């Protein structure tokens, strides 16, 4: 901040105008290749059997494609407006839309990240600007505070390297943020069935919930009361399939 203004590149009268024109050009380029980008992101994402199992192949494909185009249309709007806030507000809005419909925040962040990688890999000029906007969207998915944020911040310590637990923690954080324990229970109940389909047992899914509870108590003792209703409801949903 202490450097003289005239030394800063953006102080050149044409620099900011040129940057705006570059951003608009980038917006057009991204929309022109939206279908390809979306297809490549989904091809990677749907290697995980979760998506087809959870939503069914047609719905996963339809919504996944639609979401990809949506993300890119917001990136384009953010570029045209010169306002990263467009992506941040979109991310928070979409977070509520999707976490109340069977997805978790981690899935959304993964989707933004993969899209950023796909944009970078295409060698589009100025791709870094779009990647920054997608990173801003991912950053906006952090909850403002309280136990939901604490779960996000301590997720790695709670999961102890277990990828399945990382996803479960994200579902838990979302249910806590929304004060809707039933959302976590619904996911846990579905997850137990998914484990069974893959040759596991409901007891194994139940054991995972128990491990999650122990880890939350260990890492976030100050939030154990707030998180308890969601964990209790989940344990019940796993034990008693509907």
């Amino acid at each position, binding site marked *: 901040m202490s450097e003289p203004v005239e030394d800063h590149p953006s102080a050149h009268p044409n620099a900011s105008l040129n940057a705006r024109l570059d951003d608009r050009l980038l917006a057009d380029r991204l*929309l022109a290749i939206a279908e390809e980008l979306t297809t490549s992101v989904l091809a990677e994402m749907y290697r995980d059997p979760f998506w087809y199992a959870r939503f069914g192949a047609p719905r996963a494909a339809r919504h996944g494609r639609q979401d990809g185009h949506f993300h890119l*249309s917001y990136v384009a709007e953010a570029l045209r407006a010169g*306002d990263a*806030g467009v992506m941040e507000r979109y991310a928070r809005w979409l977070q509520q*839309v999707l976490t*109340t419909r069977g997805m978790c925040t981690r899935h959304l962040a993964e989707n933004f990240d993969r899209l950023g990688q796909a944009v970078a890999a295409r060698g589009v000029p100025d791709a870094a600007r779009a990647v920054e906007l997608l990173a801003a969207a991912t950053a906006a998915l952090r909850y403002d505070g309280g136990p939901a944020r604490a779960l996000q911040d301590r997720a790695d310590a709670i999961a102890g390297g277990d990828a399945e637990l990382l996803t479960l923690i994200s579902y838990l954080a979302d249910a806590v943020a929304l004060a809707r324990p039933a959302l976590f229970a619904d996911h846990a109940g579905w997850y137990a069935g998914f484990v069974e389909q893959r040759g596991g047992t409901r007891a194994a899914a139940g054991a995972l919930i128990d491990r999650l509870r122990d880890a939350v108590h260990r890492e976030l003792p100050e939030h154990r009361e707030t998180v308890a209703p969601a964990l209790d409801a989940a344990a019940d949903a796993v034990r008693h399939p509907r």
Partner: protein
Amino acid sequence: MTGTGIGIGTGIGTGERRVGLPTGELRERYLRAQLAGDRREAVRLVLEEGVDRGASVVELQSDVIQAAQDEIGRLWQLNLVTIAQEHMATAISQLALSALFQHAPARKAHGKKIAIACVEGEQHDLPARLVADYLELDGFEVRYFGANVPQDELGAMIRDESPDVIGLSVTMSFNMPALREAISRLRTITTAPILVGGHAVELSRQAAAALGVELAGKRPDELCAAVRRLAGVA
């Protein structure tokens, strides 16, 4: 109950002083009627509990109907209402707005005209309709074209009507390219000021500036003041 009280009215015509419901409570009851699909009750609430008890029409449009619609949008976001319920609720608000419109004492006409349209592809017409109603009651001559107006036809109507101000509404972000196209086409036809509104443009104050147009305020008083200024109404 806190919040603005609606209508500690005088009960015009009856000579009796009647105390109306607080705005928040009226909005909650209206919302419940909407979600229950009870068209008659929704209209009864805004007329009998609102207008008849001295609430202003603009307050009912804004703090009850528009606010309830915002809440429906939030409930959809949280997956607490379905798209079908949202559509049912919105249809009820169209009905309630029509009923209110009939009871609205318009300000004296000042001879300025505004044309209001949703851009091509935009199906959400309630926000634009509210704007049309607010401005008509504020003395504007309003031409309201509704949802999804084809680009060519918008241009032709603007040529025919020669409005003093043009209002364009866009709710969904994927219709932003249509907004941009509409603005660039209109710029070849007219120099009338263009005002934009709706969820998609409200996402960023900078978006309207980048388009070289004005952003419509969400509150009716802000909106009317902005359009009056653009139209040159004293």
